[in-house]
């Protein structure tokens, strides 16, 4: 069955809400408006305003309330409209959600799921185009997911809800319209990375909104006879080092691609892990393709220039191969 990423998320929400009365969705305009990216469209009619709960513009307050509701025995799904606004709620995520279990020595847990749209590419400029999943992925106590396929959009939410600890889900805004065939096997775990394209010459490691671009780059490389392997991280915390290192050991070269600013990018962290653990397996310096270090501009040509693009990935891979 063909389905869009948006529909897959909606189906996952519907399924979770139907299966467990403790599950509810809350966030700005998730109800009457239907969600700013229309993910929850129609769910208000189905589940009512208590369980599809519109909130005022109070990110710190309602994310904290979601955490509290999780402590209180519910299974809230909190939608933060975009990652940009999540900065206002960051204190609650860092200083409450991530800490409760450890700091209370296991007495309390916070089974909350926090979803947010992230990333650039829609010409909505510097305050609406951030990628902060690298920051979230650095916080012990959180699990951070980045579904990049319709299957993962469909399957990850339920698994996240089953986790007794806080899980963050980053939905790249450019993926909502992605249409793919839903596979017959259900996604069954949120612990491992996936090889999305097997290859032997260079390992292209990425996730989320950069996966389609990386797959396109791999196709372009294939046309030039370069056999790239594409790794989709899927889980940004904890990182699946085994899959990353296996790919790097096989290909002996790696380019890491993400949409963060280069400095402090998740790509940098992946490179650090490779440099620590697979140094002797490398035949060439590591490389990354990230966003340029500027606030994201509005004009299309500038935005395109600021973002990772297939051509840049191809160039980085070829440079590494001396081509």
């Amino acid at each position, binding site marked *: 069955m063909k389905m869009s990423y948006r529909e897959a998320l909606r189906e996952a929400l519907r399924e979770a809400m139907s299966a467990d009365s403790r599950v509810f969705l809350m966030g*700005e*305009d998730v*109800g*009457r*408006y*239907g969600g*700013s990216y229309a993910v929850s469209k129609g769910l208000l009619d189905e589940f009512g305003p208590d369980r599809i709960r*519109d909130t*005022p*513009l*109070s*990110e*710190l*307050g309602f994310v904290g309330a979601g955490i509290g509701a999780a402590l209180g025995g519910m299974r809230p799904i909190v939608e933060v409209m975009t990652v*940009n*606004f999540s900065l*206002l709620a960051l204190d609650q995520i860092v200083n409450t959600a991530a800490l409760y279990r450890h700091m209370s020595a296991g007495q309390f847990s916070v089974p909350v799921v926090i979803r947010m749209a992230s990333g650039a590419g*829609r*010409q*909505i*400029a*510097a*305050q*609406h185009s951030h990628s902060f999943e690298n920051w979230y992925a650095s916080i012990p106590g959180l699990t951070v997911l980045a579904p990049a396929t319709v299957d993962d959009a469909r399957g990850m939410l339920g698994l996240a809800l089953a986790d007794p600890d806080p899980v963050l889900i980053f939905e790249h805004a450019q993926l909502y319209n992605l249409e793919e065939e839903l596979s017959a096997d259900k996604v069954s775990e949120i612990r491992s990375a996936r090889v999305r394209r097997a290859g032997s010459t260079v390992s292209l490691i990425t996730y989320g909104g950069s996966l389609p671009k990386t797959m396109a780059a791999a196709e372009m490389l294939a046309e030039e006879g370069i056999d790239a392997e594409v790794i989709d991280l899927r889980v940004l915390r904890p990182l699946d080092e085994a899959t990353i290192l296996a790919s790097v050991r096989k290909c002996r070269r790696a380019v890491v691609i993400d949409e963060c600013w*280069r*400095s402090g990018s998740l790509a940098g962290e992946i490179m650090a892990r490779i440099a620590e653990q697979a140094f002797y397996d490398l035949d060439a310096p590591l490389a990354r393709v990230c966003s*340029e*270090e*500027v*606030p994201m*501009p*509005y*004009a*299309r*040509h*500038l935005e395109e*220039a*600021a973002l990772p693009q297939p051509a840049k990935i191809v160039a980085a891979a070829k440079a590494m191969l001396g081509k």
Partner: protein
Amino acid sequence: MNTSLATGPLPFARDFALQLLEDMLRIRRMEEKCAELYGAQKIRGFLHLYIGEEAVAVGSLHALRPVDNIVATYREHGHALVRGLSMQSIMAEMYGKREGSSRGRGGSMHLFDARTRFFGGNAIVAGGLPIAVGLALAARMRGEASVTACYFGEGAIAEGAFHESMNLAALWRLPVLFCCENNLYAMGTALSRSESQTDLCAKAASYKVRTESVDGQDVAAVYETTCRAEQYVREGNGPCFIEYRTYRYRAHSMFDPDLYRDKREIEQWKQRGPLHGFTARLKQLEMLSEEEFLALDAKVGAEVERAVAFAEAGDWEPIEDLALDLCAREANK
């Protein structure tokens, strides 16, 4: 909602009245064109139209002085235009051209102009309020007699930033004019579903801030009320909060299917259109003939056409200049 239109004599001269009318018309026609250009994909990204709310920006900004600071939101085309940005630089910015007010970096939500002390365009709801407090603090410390006017929607009131800013401004008695554009909705969320207390002046008063509430569809009333508030603030009495009761006729943004409002409600508010109402009043007062109105409209139409032509003819910022103006010093990576 008061459904009648304001009538009767005006508290100011005909020339000024015509200027108010013209500015409202300039916003209206410019934005109608923007909507069209959005359809033609000349303008992209988010576009939040101010159509229906023009009297607020026009009446209030005309009450302010060049020395004053303006802080606005993502729904700020009208404010930018009335404050003195050229329609050309606004249109070019929306096209993403280097002739735009921010060389195409900002787009619709991020218009800036240092000359007129227009501090932007801010796409974070309530993000401008702390900035306004700081601008007012600077003015006070520098001994300037300026007022900082900060615009925001009623949706922003739920944000912590509103609370912290109101308290700081009141505690320090800073010259901030908090201009709340209450158009009853924050995207699809009606005020009554976002605030336990829907009397916004009562909320603001809890900070010991003086408050005013005015019909935002009546440009004369907006002007008068803002003048009164502006004077109070300028004289050093501390901040003032003004609620402008208004309505947006269009959807929240070009992505919004607008399914959360009753069509009758929209129609009712359209009966009280700021342009329509003020034009009728001027005619009734025999300050404006239909001919004069058409001439004015034609003049404004020509300005819009010039702005579009200017934007069309503009250049793209070279990609090499992506990091230009990131920092004053050398590239910062």
